[in-house]
């Protein structure tokens, strides 16, 4: 099992959610986060003076999937979240050791 973490632009959340629902993803965890990458935020103007907004608002999606679905899920996210402009985000894939569904006690693949 793998965890797919995607940091995306906030306004792309609907598109990504719909695209993932279409390929049969049944659940996800979403959080509002802030961060910056290579571009180091961007500059804005206030009363004639420029200032840098370091931490830009982003959305982080977390999904846990079986190993064989990873490729399809990441491709779907990339397609749905891409605008082609700076700051589209990143996807991280990592291993998951164990999953337990609290209500039933089911484990691993059955609990996804």
């Amino acid at each position, binding site marked *: 099992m793998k965890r797919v973490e995607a940091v995306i632009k906030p306004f792309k959340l609907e598109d990504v959610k719909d695209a993932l629902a279409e390929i049969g993803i049944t659940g996800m965890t979403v959080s509002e986060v802030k961060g910056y990458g290579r571009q180091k935020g961007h500059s*804005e*103007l*206030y*009363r*004639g*003076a*420029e*200032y840098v907004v370091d931490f830009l608002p982003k959305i982080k999606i977390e999904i846990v999937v079986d190993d064989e679905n990873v490729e399809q899920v990441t491709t779907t996210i990339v397609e749905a979240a891409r605008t082609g402009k700076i700051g589209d985000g990143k996807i991280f894939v990592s291993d998951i050791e164990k999953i337990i569904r609290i209500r039933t006690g089911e484990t691993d693949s059955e609990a996804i």
Partner: protein
Amino acid sequence: MLETDFKYIIDTFFTLFAMTLIIFMVPGFAMLEAGLVRTKNVSAVLTTNVMIYAVASLAFLLFGYKVAFGSFDSSTSSIWAIVMFQMAFVGKSINIVSGGVSERVRIIPLAIFTIIMGSVIYPMVVNISWGADMLRDTFLDLSMYDLAGSTVIHSTGGWALLAALFIVGSRRGRYQEGRVKVIPASNIPLVVLGAFLLWIGWFGFNGGSVGSISSVESANLVAKTIMNTNTAGLCGAIIAGVIMYIRYKLFDITMILNGALGGLVAVTAAADLYDMYTPILIGLIGGALVVFAVPLFDKLKLDDPVGALSVHLINGIWGTLAVGIFIQNISFMAQLKGVFLIGMFVFSISYTVLFIINKFFKFRADNEAQLMGMDINECGVEAYPEFRRAI
């Protein structure tokens, strides 16, 4: 009913109505300032504004009015309406000070300064310009024309603010190693509301200063004064927007509103004397001055979160001088003398008073208090307790 009785009643009513409009500038200043500062300082800013209205008005009622005018006396309308009308102005000049030093000033020393400003400093300015005129027949006698206080109120507040900025200093971390750290406004809709309340209040400010509405001529004059007031505000807003767009390809609403207020301050000196078109030019220049003055004051490290120096000091001066430029039988030198003398007087006496108060009660909150926010340190009531505090 006698015609004179009727005139008396109408003028009293008019004065009370104008006074009410001016009092609307209290929430105007409060909302404008609350929107331009960070959320952690909003309760403190609002408390200051309300306290200033209360403290300054009472100080003026008990002491200031007599300092300014000598005695309670009027035969043309109710003296109590006139007292209320004059009282409505006093808080404005101090609001200008409090706005410029917000986010780091403590309330108690500011309240003490408010008492002195409301009972002595501002009334002395009124005395030599509109009031009992204690300098009459001396070489310091002022013959400046200032309808509703471009100098008497706005640049008076501006000079006192300048003195206060030297005592209070800039906000924590605002100027570091030659760099200016921008601290953006927290609530733009409040800034808009506040600016428009001020704008509406200005109709009472300038219209009421004509003094009478009980004849056809004076009714016309009041209407023209209010129209001219409005015109300068419109043109101030437009030019600020245009300049911002030309320079940065962006519209900054805070600057546009400051531009409007700059135009309003500038036309205040003689909104009753100008023809229909002159206020356009006065407003355009006033609004433009604001756009260039804001970054200039930043370069001078005079940290003014709301732009009060640019709006009130610069345009108070410009507006007063403009009367000498545009009105034929008013001497430019007389206007300049008024600007200069009142400026010197207010700056030096304010600086001295502020310096002495600062010895006993520090005006500036320490860095930790500023970091936590003035709401917690001065009021205990946070304006937005549900927001996570951004430091």
